[in-house]
């Protein structure tokens, strides 16, 4: 037991932290979907651009990468606005398929622009407060600085977005827009502006997440793909448009992907030998995702059908 328990604790902590990272990345996606019913396929590319923003500007300004997060947020918000007013608002006139293909095209454009300007090789941040830092706590539990920071940022952003939507006038206008566009327009809410706001919030939050993640993850033009799949699963699992749902689903996924570690510890403890299931770790995520879609299509906490 003395080997199994710490292993469980370690997996639990690492799963929770990773889950909050997944939730942070998914936040922007769920905000945009909640307000507009649009799935933003370019979400991962926003993350990638946030990563490059920090990577490029930190040495340029000469500050720690962590301090460039607001800048990444501004770039992300600007990008969100540009995408909305430049592309997406025109797509709204078309059928659902046009919207899907439109943001998909946006994804390809952004990715290839990154390829053109930044090159294909992975790059990473070498120096910074968060780079390579970690602390040992308790029985061998490792807290990685990047993930810890991402977890804190995740909680802060979720609370902030939740507060914005539930407690401010603008938030109420956003909610009204997402509930009933026509109705919102009748009472004098500029739904155009609300949509733009949702894209700005979505873009900013994911770009900030990117700026933080680049302290740990190497960035290349295709990095978005890794996170997009998980972000979609997170949002669908939590319920499209549900802020609270995205957070809890993120944590759930974090815990699911650390299952193989628990399993490994268990089979070693039980002396069962070589039965590693790491190669299936995302399979479990998608199986649960699939089951939820079949049993409860609106997601765990979703209210949109």
């Amino acid at each position: 037991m003395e080997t199994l328990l710490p292993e469980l604790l370690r997996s639990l902590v690492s799963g929770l932290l990773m889950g909050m990272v997944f939730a942070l990345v998914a936040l922007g996606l769920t905000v945009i979907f909640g307000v507009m019913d649009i799935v933003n396929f370019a979400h991962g590319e926003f993350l990638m651009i946030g990563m490059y923003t920090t990577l490029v500007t930190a040495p340029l300004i000469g500050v720690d990468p962590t301090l460039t997060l607001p800048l990444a947020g501004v770039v992300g918000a600007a990008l969100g606005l540009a995408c909305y007013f430049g592309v997406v608002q025109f797509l709204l006139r078309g059928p659902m398929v046009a919207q899907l293909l439109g943001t998909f095209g946006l994804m390809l454009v952004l990715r290839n622009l990154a390829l053109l300007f930044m090159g294909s090789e992975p790059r990473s941040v070498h120096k910074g407060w968060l780079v390579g830092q970690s602390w040992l706590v308790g029985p061998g539990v490792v807290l990685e600085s990047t993930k810890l920071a991402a977890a804190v940022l995740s909680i802060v952003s979720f609370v902030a977005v939740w507060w914005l939507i539930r407690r401010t006038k603008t938030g109420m206008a956003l909610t009204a827009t997402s509930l009933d566009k026509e109705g919102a327009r009748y009472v004098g809410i500029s739904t155009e502006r609300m949509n733009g706001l949702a894209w700005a919030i979505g873009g900013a939050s994911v770009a900030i997440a990117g700026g933080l993640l680049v302290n740990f993850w190497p960035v290349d033009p295709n990095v978005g793909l890794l996170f997009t799949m998980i972000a979609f699963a997170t949002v669908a699992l939590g319920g499209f448009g549900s802020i609270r749902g995205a957070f809890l689903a993120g944590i759930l996924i974090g815990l699911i992907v650390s299952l193989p570690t628990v399993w490994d510890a268990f089979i070693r403890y039980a002396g069962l030998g070589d039965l590693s299931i790491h190669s299936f770790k995302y399979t479990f995520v998608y199986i649960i995702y699939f089951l939820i879609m079949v049993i409860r299509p609106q997601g765990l906490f979703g209210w949109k059908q």
Partner: protein
Amino acid sequence: MRKLALLLSALMLAALMVPGLALAQAKEIKLGAIYPLTGGAAAEGRELRAGVELAVEIANNVMAGIDMDMAKNAGIKSLGGAKITVIFKDHQGNPQLGADLAKKLIEDDKVVGILGCYHSSVTKTVAAVCERFEIPMINDSSTSPALTKSGFKWFWRTTPHDTQFTKDLFEFMKGLTEGKAKGVPAVPMAEIKTLAAACEKTEWGTNVSETIKQFAGEYKFDLAANLLYAAKSPDLSAEVQSLKAANPGAMLFASYTSDAILMMKTLQSMKASPKLLWGQDAGFEAPEFVSTLGDLTVGVLTRTVFTPQVAQVKKVAGQVNELYKKKTGIDLSGPSARSFTGLQAWVHVLEKAGSTEPKAIQAAANAITIPGEQLVVPWFGIKFANMGDDIGQNTLGTGMIGQYQKKGDKITLEIVYPFDLATSNMVYPFKGF
């Protein structure tokens, strides 16, 4: 009158076409090269391409100061000095795309043969296409042992494969415990007996994982963890935690570039502390591995087929490296040295065949022996097996194990195995993160 005009124009057309055809045949030999030029392994792809391009340049021109047969002629002599043209295609690490590109090269571009494809998974599908069309393919850089186990008649591989490389690793570890490593007193077996391995889960990594398991048994090591992971994963902390939990003396990896970097960063932040850390080439040998991770790589071992240090023991390697560096700004490495050698093998095979007919090329490839002194890589030469259970495999290849060491403020890959080729004292144990 009309008949005469028709006849005349037909004659003129024929006159125009015949020398045209003859010229095209004599002056150009088209080869197709399929590599990962974009995507996760784009960095290696660029090197593979540069290696091929340099070999083509040397083959097509008389180059003084390079002690190779192919530098002495302009083009393929037995084909009337025909020049080699290589058409590059990008498979992005996608086996299905690779197969489609191979079909296009064969049917539309009418290539004489194929070179590639780096990823074993892609080489597998491309080799199957070549087999069906009966078009010869030389593989320069894919190391999954299974590729030469299918009994293909149109597939030849110049690089040694993972069974050989993994055996090298265990020979090296055995030698380490016997005090054979340069500058390291005999290491007690207990220190490195426990192993933990993590391999990416496509064709290549899966095979490495199996050979590690096999040799661990044969050499009496204890493989406490042996897991497969997805190279395109945003996070590897669960995997690293499992490796750590096994408390291994040596950690073994088979990774491509971006996952190798992520793996190292995760090992660092999770405070892993193995005595030895070995990577099966690929990501561990990519230039980005060192440029991105910097000092973190010091002490890491990787199997390799080429380091610039080879130039110390092999003159021709130094000459080619000099040229390569002038063109690209970087030294030859595992991928570029092997793609260079792959194209060189094509040149020798075509020279011997004296024809671009598939059958003639097949016969030439099965009969050819290229002596080691022609090559930049430290092999005994190239001779393909045409019987046994490894058909098409080069039987004269050898592997090396290199270690990243800090010399001044530069990180270089020093040879530590074979022990008699060692260019520097080995650093043991791995200093940790």
